[in-house]
């Protein structure tokens, strides 16, 4: 039942996100709005998601990668776009992505609160 409830809640909030996006005319995708709304909903009710629901959500999030495959196959058709300037593009993509990773992680690591539980894997 938890899975069914989860799917209902997620789709409901995605729908609400869709309404919010239409009302605000921003490029922010409806699911991102839905994510913010769902987090706000739990915050306002001062409640944490029930464990069964949380487990079902983690199950879904664990194969997030799979869900990007259909869109990813679409880029193969456009891969020729890279050919025109493959050297600047690939150097910049790799260099800039690594810099972004390092800067973001370093600031958060240096100035943020450290996690108290270090080995709470799934």
């Amino acid at each position: 039942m938890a899975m069914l409830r989860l799917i209902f809640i997620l789709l409901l909030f995605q729908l609400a996100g869709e309404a919010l996006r239409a009302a605000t005319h921003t490029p922010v995708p409806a699911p991102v709005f839905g994510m913010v709304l769902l987090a706000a909903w739990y915050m306002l009710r001062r409640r944490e998601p029930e464990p069964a629901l949380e487990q079902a959500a983690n199950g879904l999030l664990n194969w997030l990668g799979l869900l990007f495959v259909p869109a990813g196959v679409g880029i193969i058709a456009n891969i020729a776009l890279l050919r025109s300037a493959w050297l600047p593009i690939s150097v910049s993509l790799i260099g800039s992505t690594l810099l972004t990773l390092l800067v973001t992680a370093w600031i958060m690591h240096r100035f943020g609160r450290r996690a108290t539980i270090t080995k709470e894997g799934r």
Partner: protein
Amino acid sequence: MNWSTIPHTLSPGVIPLFAIVLTLGAYLFGIDVQRRLRSPLANPVLIAIVIIGSTLRLLHLSYQDYFSGAQFIHFLLGPATVALAIPMVRALEHMRRSLWPMLAALFAGSIVGMVSGYSFVRMLGGSQPVALSMLPKSLTTPIALAVSQNIGGVPSLCAVLAILGGVLVAVGIDRTLDWVNIHDPAARGLAAGTAGSGIGASRVIPQHTLSAAFAGVAIGANGIITAVLAPLVAPLLKHW
């Protein structure tokens, strides 16, 4: 016999089913390869994309044929993004205490990504539209497309870069952050979401609930921050 014609002789309803089976099979195979090689370089998303791309070419199937079935998997991307709110709720207390460092890291990541992406392309002789297409490369694809239209990038190139950037983060994040000794799950999650949005996040989400929570925040926040900053930063970069 020309076996590439087989899919076209089957009833049309079979092609969507074939696309779904192919997608699941290729991804599961990618997971197996990753487990066996124990290397993040063998990324299941990348392996699946390559297998499916070559299969479609071999069987003379178009991307539209493939997407007729794959859209059902693609559709789940929406609810899965909403689901990122659930680990986030658990991490709220943690986030409240590191709110300022988190915002500083997000803004710095957004600006460093835009400026370095543009500058590297220009330094190596790339054209201005190509360089501008680099600005939203770390964003989730729908926001990246909207931003690139705003600032004069090439939208289709942007979509390719957004996906490749995500794959790059998924492949490189463990090695890079291990190298500088950053093991904090919150910092890793925030960096994965900021630099590689959803695909980057998919690598760190199974590692720790805090990583999942901070990756979710980073995808949304960097999308909004960069969408607001890119139209301001782009004119400055163009004059540089």
